């Protein structure tokens, strides 16, 4: 394989075969089309660029959630050092008057295999952090606050969020970078929302969920103990 350099970063392209890549990521990689060459891509020997998948994901059980939003409070606390629901990288939205289970939704970042937010970022601030299990994360220093990532996220509410005071975007990094929490985070460590949830309604997994809407990101975490408290398991 000839040495090639990434047009954007000038970094040497990794010398990987497609087979090696699949072995490395344990998942199907994405062949980059004409959408543009992105930083953090891995170049395969046949010239196809691939995005390594994240090595960690948050799964939620919306039917188990008690709506206390401790996950949101913990998220903004460990990342920003303040309590701020608008800066929580996981969002719980609920309606007191509505029927269970549609009275509540939990919106967590998907760590998508094809991150539209990353593709939309003009500066490379939103990148794949290979040091932390390929999480899709934002380098705050490089973020120019253009909100392209915020607009690009295909989910509602958008998982790339905006800090209007700092004029910077934020997104879930699986707690890889928590200035206000000593616990090692990222795919190999702990996540504040998982640790704090009083009922165990958020789960971390290394397995790539099905990447279709909510499918694969919503799990049933209600065991026998939940049923013993009078709640449905299904």
């Amino acid at each position, binding site marked *: 394989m000839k040495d090639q350099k990434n047009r954007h970063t000038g970094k040497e392209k990794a010398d990987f075969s497609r087979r090696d890549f699949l072995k490395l990521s344990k998942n199907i990689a994405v062949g980059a089309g004409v959408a543009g060459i992105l930083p953090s891509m891995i170049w395969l020997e046949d010239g196809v660029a691939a995005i390594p998948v994240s090595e960690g994901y948050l799964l939620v059980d919306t039917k188990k959630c*008690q709506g206390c939003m401790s996950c949101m*409070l913990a998220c903004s606390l460990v990342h920003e050092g303040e309590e701020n629901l608008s800066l929580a990288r996981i969002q719980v939205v609920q*309606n007191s008057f509505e029927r269970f289970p549609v009275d509540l939704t939990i919106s967590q970042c998907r760590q998508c295999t094809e991150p539209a937010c990353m593709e939309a970022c003009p500066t490379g601030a939103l990148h794949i952090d290979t040091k932390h299990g390929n999480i899709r994360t934002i380098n705050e220093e490089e973020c120019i606050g253009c909100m392209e990532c915020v607009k690009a996220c295909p989910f509602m509410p958008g998982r790339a969020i905006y800090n209007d005071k700092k004029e910077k975007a934020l997104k879930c990094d699986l707690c890889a970078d928590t200035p206000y929490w000593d616990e090692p985070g990222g795919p190999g460590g702990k996540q504040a929302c998982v640790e704090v949830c009083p009922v165990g309604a958020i789960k971390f997994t290394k397995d790539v969920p099905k990447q279709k809407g909510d499918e694969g990101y919503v799990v049933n975490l209600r065991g026998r103990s939940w049923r013993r408290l009078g*709640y449905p398991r299904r």
Partner: protein
Amino acid sequence: MSGYAGKILRVNLTKKEITAIPTKKYEHWVGGHGMGSAIFFDLVKDKTIDGFNPANVVTLMTSPLSGTLVPAASGRTEVQGIGVQSYPIGWFTRSNFGGRFSSMLKYAGWDGVVIEGKASRPVWIDIRNDDVKIRECASLSLWGKDTWECQEIIWDYVAGEGKYGDWIKQNNSEARTTQRPAVVAIGPAGENLSRVACLIHDASSAAGQGGFGAVWGSKNLKAISVIGTGGIKIHDPQGLMAARLWQKKNYAFDLENLIERWGFQHQAPPAPIALWRGGRPKIGQRPQACLGCHSACRARYDDALGNEASCFASVFYWDAKSLDIQRTASDLINKYGLNAVEMCFGLLYIYLLNQNGVLKSSNIPKCPLDFSNYGSEEFVERFVKMVSYGDDGNGNKSQFGKDISGGFVWAAEKWGRREQDLNNGMLSFPYWGLPIHKEPRAQVYWGYATLLGDRDINEHDFDWLKHDAKIAARWGRKTMATAEEAVKIVTDKMVPYQGDMLMMDFSEKNIYSEHMAKLVSWHRYYTRFWKQSMLFCDVRWPDFLNLYAPGKIGSTGIAEPKFLKAVTGKDFSFLDGINLGRKIWNLDHAIWTLQGRHRDMVHFADIIYKRKASWDVDGKAYMPGIENGKWDYHYYARRTLDRNKFDEFKTRFYQLQGWDEASGWPKKKTLDSLGLSYVASELEANGRLGKG
């Protein structure tokens, strides 16, 4: 000022003025009730006014812990002002509701809201961060709407072009939130000035006592809505996260190792305190918690019937023919904005009047209720409407409806039956014209504190002792601890009286003692500060006896100051809180004194002295006590209190407080020692300063 927004919103409805009070001015009260009492004292020059007087000031206060990760201390709001529920006068009183209002208020940049005056037309207050508007109800047709509909209309209005479930921009800026505004509203009951009216937030977070719904109605205030996109500065974010995880690991329930299943305990798992006689519906449901709480005490259901109702909101229509009707009744009182406890015992009163054949007597106006229908949905809906609208429940004039809408004790007074019915057991309102809650002849601290204060205390700090012993006796199981063990754990935490185990001896020989005076005092101080000022929730705190903890010793005493320090940086011990609680209690008592309180007024209805309890108001009241030299749990409800001995108890209590024994009025030296000289001056100017 870590933990604070830094300013308190002041809204004068008469002048349509919106100003701010710097929180710093009142920071020495730390938050919540203490701040509210101090603000009330400063702003209400004539404390003898009636609750309906436009000069009455209502405060809604937060705590530095509101909106933070502190477990079961983040979501509650303290409400204060002169109430209209109690008899013979509406005392300066308090109420408190859960949910997320206080936190949202702080995210919007406010530590509290102070309401003064009276609007010329019905209005609501629209708070969006720093932008505050007094808006007319007419444009959204809010006046006349029930509390739920009112909230939903406001949600939609505030969302504008936005859609819930998505990010909604605020204040024409890039500031955004996914959250609905937190709205607290009155229903038709408040609009029609019913003394039974309360404030409702979300589905069933209610400031029930005091008749604040009617006070708002008298001010032409329908609702306050708040949406905030800002943050709360935390002194030690690492410490707060560590403290929360410490609490979770050592003191919270363990789902895979459940010890206790239910109750007003820190360690109890998330299960709705749904007391419908038909039990909890066996349908799809989730636990539902206030913001930041570690263990929900409410639920939402797959038919949305009875959403978030708990405790008395679920007890209210006890005799409903079906569970669905009971749940419907819970929704009705929430929608119409009615105090569940007063409605429960008010309905019992009307029912007993009918049962005893006196409802049709000549001094009682014609009752429109059809008791052949009792237990049906039609019956309860009509009853709720009668109390809410002061009519026959069908929109026609009714003197009976008007009378009960004015409060059940007040109605009995009008009918010339108050004294008689208080003492024949039909009107279970034994103190200050307020409904019974716990058996005052057994759980004496509850009744004493209610009488020495302003309202049914509704403080469950020692209530688990009774429930645990009651359940053990009924089901033949062991209590969580022996009486002696439990009393030791509890009293060891009761600084500065720690170690006096006799504080928890409910035997006949001890219930008028100075030990009991200490228990009541400590309870006043603890709740006035840690619960009502720091807003630790009454359901999940204190953490006295905890089966998950080593030696069953819960976290209270350590946890509260640990969390306060992490949020604010204040080096403020548990005892500092108790001492500040004493100061707050003295300030409140001074206000009641200015209102006309005298020791001679402080008595139960005669029935408490003359008749043993003939029924168990809250299940059998087993309490710890020493009999024949041994600690055990005993069933103490079947006794009367002794009027003279209760008078002696009051003397002991007043001595302990440093108040004048003859009048019960505060003494100057006591107030001076608490830094309340300005309060002493006002008492003196009004001729109500205690001697000595």
